[in-house]
């Protein structure tokens, strides 16, 4: 009898201890990312085809260089030697030119060890997080360490879901069209899994609705000079000062156009959170649209949401309709020029 009571007491103590471990919020973490700005050659339609169909890709106008161009992007490396790129998980290949996905729980600190591998002075700064390190541009070949803290005021507000999206970017002159942008997901305190992702969501996707005006990118001269990106040897002198809707504007999702973004997969009934954002090219007004499913955005039920210049948003979806569906921008000149991708809802 006494032994039984002892056992019960021991079990209760153990349970209490376990419960304490589970309930106690994880200690604030320091999350470190090694990120370089790299100069890459990019092609928004690697397959060369319109994978959405049935319409073929519109031929490029004569004053367009071609589908390939040079671009600056943020890429993750494994350590401070910046010798090895951190491999992007296969299920994040759809992120394309978008910078590495960073995560934090409220209370954490993000440390970014940054190296500028490009030929241009660039920097890195977060939107919405507290940053030390200032805005000074980092000279080509140089490094800088940034510390971004994530106070309560950087976390979800009372009407937000368990996580919200912020972005980081370069903000030097002429860098709006460089390609230097990336996402930061911040999760409410106590709602994060160890990797920082929200514990009440089964799957997350990040989509950058992006217009890039190549002629405004610092890499424009390089794209003109490189026969790989300028096969017809167009001359810089044939370009008047940048005008609206010139022929070297590409609209894309995470860098991809005409359905070339790798397919996204989710299961019926999963709690899916979509993070969408824009950067700040001249006409970066977009209308992210989902087919076949609806989303909850600020408590209202929609399938198209508005997105202004440099604006992040998070919407929640519980897919219930299996099949292959589109995510796209409803602005017609954007959709006409391939601002569309596909996602699959599995049974």
């Amino acid at each position, binding site marked *: 009898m006494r032994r039984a009571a002892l056992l019960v007491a021991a079990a209760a103590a153990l349970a209490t201890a376990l419960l304490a471990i589970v309930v106690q919020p994880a200690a604030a973490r320091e999350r470190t990312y090694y990120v370089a700005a790299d100069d890459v050659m990019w092609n928004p339609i690697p397959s060369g085809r319109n994978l959405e169909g049935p319409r073929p890709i519109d031929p490029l106008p004569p004053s367009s260089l071609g589908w390939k161009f040079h671009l600056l992007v943020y890429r993750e490396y494994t350590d401070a030697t910046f010798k090895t790129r951190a491999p992007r998980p296969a299920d994040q290949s759809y992120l394309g030119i978008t910078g590495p996905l960073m995560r934090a729980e409220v209370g954490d600190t993000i440390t970014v060890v940054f190296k500028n591998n490009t030929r241009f002075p660039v920097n890195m700064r977060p939107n919405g997080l507290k940053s030390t390190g200032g805005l000074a541009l980092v000279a080509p070949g140089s490094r800088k360490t940034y510390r971004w803290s994530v106070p309560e005021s950087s976390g979800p507000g009372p009407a937000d879901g368990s996580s919200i999206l912020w972005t980081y970017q370069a903000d030097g002159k002429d860098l709006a069209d460089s390609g230097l942008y990336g996402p930061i997901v911040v999760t409410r305190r106590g709602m994060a899994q160890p990797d920082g992702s929200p514990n009440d969501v089964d799957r997350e996707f990040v989509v950058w609705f992006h217009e890039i005006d190549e002629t405004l990118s610092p890499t424009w001269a390089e794209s003109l000079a490189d026969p790989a990106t300028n096969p017809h040897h167009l001359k810089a002198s044939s370009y008047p000062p940048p005008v609206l809707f010139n022929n070297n504007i590409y609209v894309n999702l995470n860098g991809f156009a005409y359905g070339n973004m790798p397919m996204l997969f989710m299961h019926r009934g999963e709690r899916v959170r979509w993070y969408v954002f824009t950067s700040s090219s001249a006409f970066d007004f977009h209308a992210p649209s989902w087919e076949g499913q609806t989303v909850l955005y600020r408590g209202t*039920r929609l399938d198209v949401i508005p997105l202004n210049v440099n604006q992040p948003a998070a919407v929640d979806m519980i897919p219930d309709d299996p099949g292959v569906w589109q995510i796209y921008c409803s602005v017609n000149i954007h959709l006409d020029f391939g601002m569309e991708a596909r996602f699959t809802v599995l049974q």
Partner: protein
Amino acid sequence: MRRVLLSLFGVALLFGAFARPAQATIRTYYIAADEVVWNYAPSGMDVITGKPLPPLAPKQLGWAFHKAAYHQYTDATFKHMTVRPADESYMGLFGPVIHAEVGDTIVIHFKNQTRFPLSVHAHGMLYDKSSEGALYQDGMPKSTKLGDGVPPGQQFTYSWRVPDRAGPGPGDPSSVMWMFHSHVDEVHDVNTGPVGAIVITRKGMAKPDGTPKDVDREIFVVFAEEDESSSLFFPANVADPTINKRHVKAAGPYLTDDELFSINGFVYGNMPMPTMRLGERVRWYVMATMSDFDFHTPHWHGNTLLIDGMRTDITDISPMEMRVGDMVPDAAGIWLLHCHVNIHLDSGMEARYEVLK
């Protein structure tokens, strides 16, 4: 005593019968896409200023164009168009309106009476891929794609379910609006004209016809930059001397002066006025179409609205976005409803509504 108990029991039974949400209903509509000649300014006047319309721009064909519109019919013969009540004449090119309650099923018998393949693609509803009405490479066999582009003269039946996710979210009022439109070649189809509305009412909040119980009057407006150069009828419009009276030549695949900034297909105040009474609970459903500059800021003069729980007299709307606003008018008179984007307002994106005493 026993009689009292019995009658109490009877009352309880009756109460039970009434309190129970109405059973799921199948709502059937007969909708055709028809060809029309549509005049954006039928009065020939700028009704807002009382002056003549501005002169035609150099490359503008005129104010009237061949277009397509969805029309509701009474039955499967598609012989009799449902007559639109006079107080809905303001809807112009927009419509018809489909009403359903969460839990219902909507069946659309569609007939394409135009010369182009067209479809009916609904937003928000739950359907099989065969009822999507949108043509793209979605891995589905050809046999399921009939509804993605219904050939001229042919019919197709779309079936849409209305689960919770098609109804109002926690922050929405008792009903929300979704649009439907043709999606064979979306950009060109939408500029060709046919766009309609679906109102979904929260479960238990619908009258038998599907409209919300707590609303006296529903008003539907679509802010549309109609790019006639993107219309499927563009070559036909250029070639038709009754449309292109000045024989304007199209230098390329489009004209620069054929963007009409319209509300329900009307410009410069030519929209018949929707009317309402002081103190009525009026629900405005607002949407935009999808041309280059279909970003609008609808502005109501004279009365305020509640949108997303916030008081306003102006809202913002992106391409293909839909918004619901509630108004209880307390200022009688004729008031402006217009887009506040200056080039849109300059181009006639303005209408009027009237609040009667």
